[in-house]
């Protein structure tokens, strides 16, 4: 698009599976009519590896490419109709009783790409108003713009999605802070990428206990309403406010790990022998924060478990060495999570400060100690874990504006 904007005609070559995604992105970037030639997906991924194999595909694409570069523009291509915003009005369903109406609503929302495949709680005006009572912030305040289509995330829009997710109003300030992190201009979300990246949402500070977040055994799992519905609120808000949908403009090929709730938990500060994570990045201990991180999926440093859990024996050194085998990049960051016993074992082994851990990994990677994030997660027994992240995809925001909890005000 940049070249077209600079007055140079061109053509975009994409695999047929990415055609919808390409058209969608072209509209997002103001040039919906860009000319596209597709390469058949069923052949492209098999045969792109060598010049010899890809030749028949190039031969088939040649004439369409020439045509795209030389055929005069239609009036619509030269001067397309301005894309317009549509009103997003309330949605109403009627049926014989509440259960049937709820089912009808869920069907309708899903068909219109406004849900996540699980039943949602009806975001009635009353329920949304109740959610908004969890914060002092104005319903019209803009938190940011949500990719892929840069929908405007007002406090009210986030509240609607939070109600749908089943969140309680006291969770809402956490959700807002997480959305602030996600919408931060510097946050490289990659929520449309075929690599199927996902999010880690870690809560710190006293609000975590007040809203009963799990930080112990099963911290990445289900059965804690705060963990599950805070994450689901973010998931729904990013889908709905950002207008994203799988295989249309979210091309995560294997789906995003923990797809409905992301990985949402609280750091186990009670069993953390160092200062809490948020203190290590400049916040006060009494602050409550949320840290949002984009991480990879099912490959390399994407949640690898290290240590023995309840099964095998381990040592401080074996944990470090186990993690270090995944630290292959010196330019990225690493999120190292130590289970409480592992953290204590590291203290006993001489890693008295968090900075000692950071320095150890920095020597391994050749990168900077500040790019090693250290948190304590899970219970006893537990596993340590390691995740890789891009430096522009790891953002901590302070939780503020809470009205229903003592913390986060």
């Amino acid at each position, binding site marked *: 698009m940049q*070249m077209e904007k*600079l007055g*140079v*005609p*061109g*053509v975009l*070559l*994409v695999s047929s599976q990415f055609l919808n995604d390409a058209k969608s992105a072209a*509209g997002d970037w*103001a*040039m*919906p009519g*860009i000319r596209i030639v597709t390469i058949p997906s069923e052949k492209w991924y098999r045969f*792109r590896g060598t*010049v010899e194999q*890809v*030749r028949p*595909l*190039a031969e088939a*694409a040649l004439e369409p490419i*020439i045509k795209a*570069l*030389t055929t*005069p*523009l239609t009036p619509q291509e*030269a001067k*397309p109709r301005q*894309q317009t*915003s*549509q*009103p*997003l*009005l*309330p*949605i*109403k369903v*009627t*049926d*014989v009783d509440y259960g049937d*109406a*709820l089912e*009808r*609503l869920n*069907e309708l929302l899903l*068909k*219109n*790409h*406004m849900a996540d495949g699980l039943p949602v709680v009806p*975001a*009635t*005006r009353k329920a*949304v108003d109740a959610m908004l009572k969890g914060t002092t912030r104005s319903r019209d305040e803009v938190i940011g*713009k949500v990719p892929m*289509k*840069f*929908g*405007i995330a007002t406090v009210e*829009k986030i509240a609607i999605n939070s109600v749908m997710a089943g969140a309680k109003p006291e969770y809402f300030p956490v959700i807002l802070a997480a959305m602030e992190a996600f919408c931060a201009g510097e946050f490289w979300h990659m929520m449309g990428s075929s690599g199927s990246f996902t999010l880690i949402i870690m809560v710190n500070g006293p609000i975590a206990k007040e809203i009963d977040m799990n930080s112990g055994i099963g911290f990445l799992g289900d059965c804690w309403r705060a963990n599950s519905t805070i994450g689901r609120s973010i998931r729904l808000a990013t889908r709905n*406010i950002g207008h994203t949908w799988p295989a*249309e403009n979210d091309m995560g090929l294997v789906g995003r790990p923990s797809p409905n709730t992301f990985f949402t938990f609280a750091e186990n500060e009670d069993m953390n022998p160092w200062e809490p994570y948020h203190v290590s990045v400049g916040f006060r201990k009494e602050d409550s924060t949320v840290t949002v991180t984009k991480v990879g999926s099912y490959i390399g440093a994407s949640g690898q478990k290290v240590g023995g859990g309840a099964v095998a024996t381990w040592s401080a050194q074996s944990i470090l060495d186990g993690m270090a085998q995944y630290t292959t990049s010196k330019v990225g960051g690493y999120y190292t999570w130590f289970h409480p016993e592992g953290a204590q074992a590291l203290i006993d082994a001489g890693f008295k400060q968090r900075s000692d851990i950071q320095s150890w990994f920095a020597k391994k990677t050749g990168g900077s100690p500040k790019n090693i994030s250290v948190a304590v997660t899970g219970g006893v027994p537990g596993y340590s874990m390691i995740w890789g992240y891009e430096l522009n995809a790891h953002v901590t925001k302070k939780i503020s504006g809470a009205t229903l909890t003592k913390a986060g005000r």
Partner: protein
Amino acid sequence: MNALMRCFAVAALFVNLLPLAAAESMQTPAKPSQTTLEVLNPMGVIEPPATLGLSPRVSNLAGIKIALMHNNKPGASNLLDVLQDLLKKKYPDQSYARGYQTQPVQPPKDPEMYKKAAAECRAFIFAMGD
């Protein structure tokens, strides 16, 4: 637009809405024994950017320089290698610029890349390796 239809104008900008869903939304008014649920719309408002037209096409590809660009995804360069070969056979006096590429899923390292390419070339072919 009557009140019922207005309530049901489920809108989304560029994401395809399924006609079936829209059709289902048009219901008869609730009877006294029925239950109605009205919920707020969860979609984000989009402010579309000013829509731009395409650049005029070239009348002939003969003798021009074409930027063969890609996003550094596997195979994109191979595809352009063959296309260059095929184009060269068809237009022997064509020339090509091959150094312009973005990083995978990131902007180009050189923020001036597009300006340089636009100054150098009369047309471009951008291969996405995706």
